[in-house]
C-alpha cells in the first residue's frame, strides 16, 4: 500500500483511496475513515459542543441519561442508547454492558479479576466493568478488523 500525503491549503481535508478491486480490506479502510467523521452533539455546563469519535472514551447510561466520557470531561448527551447503537455500527464503539458503550480505540487491556468480573482498562487507566454477555461483541469487532 502506498501512502501519499500533500498539503493543499485551499481545500478541506480530502482522502482519496485508489484500489484495484473493492475487497474486504478496502471496505474496512473506508469504514474506518468514515467513522473518523462521526461527531456527537453534547452539553457541557449548558453550552453545546461537538465531540469527535476519537475523543470519546465511553458512553454511559446513568438513570436513563446518557453521558459521554472523554479523557478529562464528562458531557451530557441528548440521545438514547438505541440511537448510539445505530451510530456505533462500523465504528470503534462497542457495547460492553447494558449501560455502557466503549471506544475500543482507547482500550488497553481486558482482564478477569480473580475469576470474577471482567474489567476493561482504558489508556487513561480508567476501568470499566465488562459484561460476559458482550465479550463476544468486542471479540467480533477485533475479528472484523474494525479496531
Amino acid at each position, binding site marked *: 500500500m502506498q501512502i501519499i500525503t500533500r498539503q493543499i491549503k485551499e481545500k478541506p481535508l480530502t482522502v482519496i483511496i485508489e484500489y484495484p478491486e473493492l475487497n474486504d480490506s478496502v471496505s474496512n479502510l473506508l469504514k474506518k475513515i468514515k467513522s473518523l467523521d462521526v461527531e456527537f452533539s453534547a452539553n457541557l455546563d449548558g453550552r453545546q459542543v461537538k465531540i469527535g469519535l476519537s475523543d470519546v472514551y465511553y458512553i454511559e447510561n446513568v438513570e436513563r441519561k446518557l453521558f459521554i466520557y472523554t479523557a478529562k470531561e464528562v458531557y451530557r448527551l441528548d440521545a438514547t442508547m438505541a440511537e448510539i447503537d445505530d451510530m456505533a455500527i462500523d465504528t470503534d464503539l462497542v457495547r460492553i454492558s*447494558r449501560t455502557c458503550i466503549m471506544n475500543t480505540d482507547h482500550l488497553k487491556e481486558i482482564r*478477569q479479576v480473580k475469576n470474577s468480573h471482567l474489567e476493561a482498562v482504558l489508556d487513561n487507566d480508567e476501568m470499566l466493568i465488562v*459484561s*460476559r454477555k458482550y465479550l463476544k461483541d468486542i471479540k467480533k469487532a477485533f475479528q472484523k478488523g474494525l479496531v
Partner: protein
Amino acid sequence: MKKILKDTLLLASLMILVVFIISIFWVGITEEIGLVLKLFGLAFVLSIVNYLLDEYLSLSIIMSYIVKYFAITGIVMLFGFIVRWFYPSNFWMAFIYVGVVMVLAYSIDSFRIKKDLEFINKKIADRSILDKEN
C-alpha cells in the same frame, strides 16, 4: 469443530421437532411426542430466564452460576411437577440434573472467556506495535 458441533445440535433439534410435529397429524400426541414437546417448552422457558439473568444481573461469574443454578433448578422442579416428571419422592434429582449441566456450562464458559480475552489482548498488543511503528 465448535461450529460443526453447534450446527449438529441445531440440526438434530430441528429434525426431531419437524419429524414429531408432522407425526402428530398421523398418530396424535403420543407419550414420546409429548415428552419431546415438553422438553422444547422447558428449554424455551430456561432460555428466556437465562437471557433475563444475563441482561439484568451484574454478578461475578461464580455468583452468576450459583444464582442460575438455583433459579433453573426451581423452574425444572416446578415444570417437572406440572408435567408429572417428578414426584415428592424424587424431586431432588432436579438438583443433580441441573448441577451436571451447570458444571459443564461453567467449564466451557470459563475456557471460552479465557480464549476470548487472550485473542482480544493479543489484537490490542499488535495494534500498539503497529501504532509505535507508524
